[in-house]
Each structure stands twice: as structure tokens, then as C-alpha cells.
């Protein structure tokens, strides 16, 4: 194949410089997704009458439609929403500087939050019921028992699944290039548009994504071993 190897080597640092944007997008989305998941999961676990049905309906709808549709929807809806809310509280909307990054984070947070809700619910349910009874028997309130005993254990149980979604999310952030977020893939495209060396630039981007994914996977495996040592009885797949 007649690839422009010189360009690939010179392009590597340029694309790599956009890696922090991809990671920031991933981390912010993950943070809000976990928040959404915990909120939704709490509603489902507490069996709040009407809210539970609403949350479950929203979840199955969010899981049933493509991520790119949600991204495009947020891409159109967030500026629309903000322009209507302009001047309300501290919200200021500048049409020349539309928060595409925020729109992408919103879409990712809700999509992955819907998936992670299941993780939250199943990992809280996986904690032994006797644990909460033990809390009561030593005089803890339900809140204390949840905060100090149940949630830490559930968090450990949820690590492998959450890690899977984290890697999934890391790869999914590339779709944000469709909605004007300048992350790694967009940077690769821009850097290639001078000499039409798209193949080379995308190969560089793919290599960086691959390396990052492998590194993250290794780190998570380590974390799992480290945290899992407190919990040897559980065999986590």
C-alpha cells in the first residue's frame, strides 16, 4: 500500500494532542452517566410508585434508539433550550459559541446512564441481604447502613461492568465528531484535509484509540484485582 509514512509519523503528535479532549469527554460523560444511573437506580430500588414506571419507560426508550440519533437530537435541542432559557437564572446563551461539548456530554450521559442503571440495580441486589440486617442489629439506621455497608460493597461488585461501559463510552466518543466536537477523530480529519491523506490520519487515530483501550483495560484489571482482594468469595467474570 502506498501510504505516506512520513506524514503518519508527523501526524502522530498532532492527533495525540487531542487525546485529552477525548478523555475529558469520556470522563465528564461517565461522571454524569453514573449520576443518572444512581438516581434512576435509586428510584427503581426504592419502588417509588409512578416514577419507577416512568424511569423504566425512559430507560428502555433510550436503550432502544441509536446513540447517534440521541447525539443529533441533543445537538439540535440543547441550543434551542438554551436560547429559550437565555437570561433565566445565570444562563447566558451565545449563538456564536454553542456548547457542542455539553450537548455531546448530555447525550452520552443519558444513553450510558440508562445502561448503567441496570448495573446499579443488579449490584445493589447482589449484596447479601444479611448485611443490612447486621447493620440494624448493631444499631445503624437504614441510611447509615446503606452508606457504610451496602453501597461500598455494591460499588466493588459493579466494577467489571462499569469498566466495560467505560471502554464502550471511550470508543463511542468518536461519534461526537459528527456533531462538531473537536476530539481525536475530528482532529485527525482536519489534519488530513490538507493533502487528502485521510487513510493515514485515520490509521493514526485508530492506533491511539487501540493503545488507550488496551491501557485502560490493563488498569481496570489491576484495580479489580486490588479491590477484589477484599472480596475473595465473589468470582467476578
Amino acid at each position, binding site marked *: 500500500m502506498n501510504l505516506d509514512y512520513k506524514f503518519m509519523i508527523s501526524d502522530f503528535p498532532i492527533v495525540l494532542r487531542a487525546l485529552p479532549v477525548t478523555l475529558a469527554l469520556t470522563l465528564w460523560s461517565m461522571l454524569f452517566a453514573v449520576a443518572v444511573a444512581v438516581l434512576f437506580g435509586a428510584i427503581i430500588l426504592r419502588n417509588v410508585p409512578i416514577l419507577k414506571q416512568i424511569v423504566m419507560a425512559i430507560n428502555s426508550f433510550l436503550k432502544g434508539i441509536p446513540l*447517534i440519533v440521541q447525539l443529533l437530537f441533543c445537538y439540535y435541542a440543547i441550543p434551542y433550550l438554551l436560547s429559550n432559557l437565555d437570561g433565566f437564572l445565570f444562563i447566558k446563551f451565545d449563538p456564536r459559541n454553542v456548547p457542542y461539548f455539553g450537548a455531546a456530554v448530555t447525550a452520552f450521559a443519558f444513553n450510558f446512564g440508562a445502561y448503567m442503571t441496570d448495573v446499579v440495580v443488579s449490584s445493589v441486589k447482589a449484596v447479601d441481604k444479611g448485611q443490612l440486617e447486621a447493620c440494624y442489629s448493631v444499631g445503624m439506621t437504614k441510611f447509615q447502613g446503606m452508606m457504610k455497608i451496602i453501597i461500598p460493597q455494591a460499588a466493588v461488585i459493579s466494577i467489571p461492568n462499569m469498566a466495560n461501559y467505560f471502554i464502550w463510552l471511550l470508543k463511542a466518543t468518536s461519534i461526537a465528531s459528527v456533531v462538531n466536537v473537536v476530539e481525536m477523530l475530528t482532529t485527525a480529519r482536519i489534519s488530513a484535509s490538507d493533502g487528502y491523506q485521510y487513510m493515514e490520519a485515520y490509521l493514526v487515530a485508530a492506533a491511539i484509540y487501540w493503545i488507550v483501550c488496551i491501557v485502560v483495560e490493563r488498569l481496570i484489571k489491576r484495580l479489580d484485582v486490588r479491590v477484589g482482594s477484599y472480596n475473595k468469595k465473589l468470582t467476578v467474570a
Partner: protein
Amino acid sequence: MADGVKLMKDALPGLIEYLPMTLYFLIVPSIISLILGSMICAVRVGRKNVLYRIATVFVSFFRGTPSLVQLYLVLYGLPKLFEIFGVNINRWSAATFFVIASILNFSSFVSEALRGAYLAMDHGQIEAGYSVGYSRWQCLLHVIVPQTLQIALPNLKNLEIDLLKGTALAYTIGAVEVLGYAHRLIAINSGAGRMWVLLAAAILYFVINVVLEVFFNLLTKHYSKYERSLA
């Protein structure tokens, strides 16, 4: 609001017209990937030779990079690859490139799902197969394949749903399917009512998803009929 409902109603017939394209992007890659994925799985559970190394790198690459990047790589790379052999494939449609990229991506995921199922299968079953005089092929056909498929079915269902949602990516390279048409419609109306058109597309995707899920649930039920309940 009433405006929006009318916009959605107007958009739906056109969107449904492009449904066959989405289904084509779903069905063709899933059939070919099942074959290719089983082959990769067979290599990956076998002896650790050169083929095993190649398959491992293949699976790692296609699972470790975003599908959008793979799509672009196929779109720009395949013509260059074919150029070496003197074949010009620049005339191929975007849909073909999307299907090829889909197959490469999906078969690596399928191979991992099958590999997990194969390893989870009770290997006493294979020995039992040999002990009643099955040949290797008979053992594969009557013992390994049915049981592996049965264990892998829930995973395959999830992957299939992901594949369906992944077909929406095809519009980024210009292959027109449901989302592609929605995008075109938005462009024709210069952005008027764009959220409603997208919502209509979303509802359509949701409906296909529900159908797919029901189909797989029936399949799971059919397969688990033969499962002996552990008393």
C-alpha cells in the same frame, strides 16, 4: 406540539421507505459475521499457532477501536488495498463499504461471544459424544454447535441490538438509510422541525428494536425447551 405531531406524521412514510436499507445493513452483516465469527472462534480456541496470533490481533483491533474509525478506514483504505492488485473499486456504493466494515467489526464481537460460550460449555459433553462413536464432524454438528449457540444466545441478542443501532452510523459516509433519510429531510426543510423528524426516526428504530428483541426471546425459548431443569 400539534405542529410537531403533524411533522412526525409527514416524515414517517418516507422514513419507512428506507427501512429495507436499515434491515439490509442488519441482516447481511449478521449472517456473514456468524460464519466468519465461528471461524475466528474455532481458530482462537485451538492450537496457539500463527493463525491464532493473527486472529487475536484482529479481534483486539476491531474491539479496541471505535466502529466509526473502522468505517472510515474501510472507506479510504479498501480502495488503496485493491489498487495493489490493480482493481478499481471506487465505484462501489457507500452501502457496500458500510457492510464490509460492519462485517469486520461484528464478526470479532461474535467470535468473542461464541468463544465465551464454547469455554462455558460442559466439555464432558464432547467426550460423551466421542464415547458414543461420533466422528469429529458429528460431534461438532450435534454436540458443540447447538450447545454453544444456546449459551451464546443472550449475548448474541445484545450484539444484534447493538448492530441495529450501529447501522445509523452509515449516514456519516453517505449510505442512505433511515437516519440518512431523516438527515436529508432536515436539510431539505433547512432545519425546520428537525427535532420532530429525529424523534420520528427514533420511534422507528425503537419499534424495530422491540421486534428484534421479541424474535430473539422466542428463539431463546425454543432453544431452552431442550434444557433439562436442574431439580
